[in-house]
């Protein structure tokens, strides 16, 4: 699916470059990207996404999890990446690691390879 389309829903074309960098379907894939990001990367993502968050969430509120088209799915994946990356800018001083923490690489998410829009996370 990810390779099938790189488009975003109408009105969100300005986020295309960010999506190419950050949008991934699974927690494991997004973590791998996040672990390599710099403070500048986190700041840029935050600066670009925060002003658009209301619009993004309003668009996604109209989408059932199991009925998104590929453009909506891509917007969802970008929003998911922002949801997980925002604390690194807001709370962790731009560090890709949570300060004073256990190795995030040693945490195994049971849902790590499941698409994050799945309705069967149990």
């Amino acid at each position, binding site marked *: 699916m990810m390779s099938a389309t790189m488009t975003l829903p109408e009105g969100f074309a300005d986020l295309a470059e960010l999506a190419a960098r950050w949008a991934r379907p699974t*927690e494991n894939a997004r973590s791998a990207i996040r672990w390599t990001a710099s403070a500048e990367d986190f700041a840029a993502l*935050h600066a670009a996404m*925060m002003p658009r*968050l*209301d619009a993004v*969430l*309003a*668009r*996604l*509120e*109209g*989408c*059932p*999890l199991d009925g*998104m088209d590929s453009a*909506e799915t891509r917007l*969802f994946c970008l*929003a*998911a990446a*922002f*949801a*997980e990356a*925002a*604390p690194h800018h*807001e*709370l*962790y001083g731009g560090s890709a690691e*949570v*300060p*004073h*923490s*256990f190795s*995030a690489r*040693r*945490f*195994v*998410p*049971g*849902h790590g390879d499941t698409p*994050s*829009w799945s*309705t069967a*996370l*149990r």
Partner: protein
Amino acid sequence: MNDLGSTGLRPGAEALSHLGRSVEAIRAELGIDPVSVEAIRDPAIYALEREKIFRRAWLKVATAWEIPAIGDYKVKELPVADASVLIVRGKDDRIRAFHNVCTHRGNKVVPTSDFETFGRARANVVTCRFHGWVFGTDGPLRSVPLEGSFGTLDKACLGLREIACESWEGFVFINFADPPEQSLREYLGDFATLFGGYPYAEATTAFRYSTVLECNWKVALYAFSEGYHVPTIHAGSLPGFRGIEHADFKLIGPHASSTIYGLGMEAAESTARFAGLFHAGTDHGPRPDLLPPGINPTGRSDFQFELPNIFPNLLIHLASGCGYPGMAYFTHQFWPLDHGRTLWEGINYFRPARNAAERVAQLHVNALHRNAWLEDTATMEDTFTGIRSGAIDEMQLMDQEFLIRHAARTLDSYLAA
């Protein structure tokens, strides 16, 4: 605050007021002396724990909503009991537990490579790959290739070996004793009442994490059993979480519980936006009204979550949306792998997202909480190294650490039995 017998109780709360303990009562009942670390340090005690606790107590191994359909199964590896356990929903919709062991020569019927494995039995049977023996999901041995080549084979006695299995509120427990000394309901006792009635089964969206910690299982359990560490350890992920109050202490036989009140965290910009999404509706917003009456009995508005210790290795942090935005509850378990190695499992439970925006908000809250767990787990291996070094022989415990004091005493009493 700790006196559950005060006025203004929610209806039904007084029925459990005998569980409540003031700080003075806790000190009188559990003592105030330091507690020995020997039970953590001594491998011989771990050998005893395997026999006298993990082969005798009820252990949560699954939830009903993990295996919702007939034929769904979960295999859980439990090295603490040298066991691989198959939990399966039979054709009669009943959940049973079996040793995942072929009765022919002992191979695993369902092969596994992880600590947990999920699957679905086709046609309500599981088949051993070694020689093709077929078992019903309700246990009986159904068919044996080349059956005539066995000089004798009493198929009726060669079903999967069953393990006692009972459920409470959709949490599935097993007991290796044959038969168990008590039913699960008897074992849970007042805890089942205190925590009963919450719609756990409606919060079926689970984010699960696990890791293998190089420490004794009780080091991990104890680190998650108190709120004393929150302002220090969680200064990063929960900034401003300073008004925390760890109160409403309750003793419940081998179990115990307590409540975390507080003003919550100073939400960051993005968190405030995501929380707003949850708080707009009743599905994910704070629902203190759903809490069983013995929890937050006076209906305080700063309730965060209830933190019990369910003997021997389960925590259910019941928040009902009051603590982390949108989260119904979260659980921890601590599975010994050997004396100095522990499988920790943490699961965040949400009600199902009604649209993609709610799921994004869940991912945010889940990530914040996962990060807090990364802060918690950072201390555990160091603590165990310190205890093994012999530099200290005792732990100093304050009032908010009474769950540790109580768990240590319960462990001692089981080992002495």
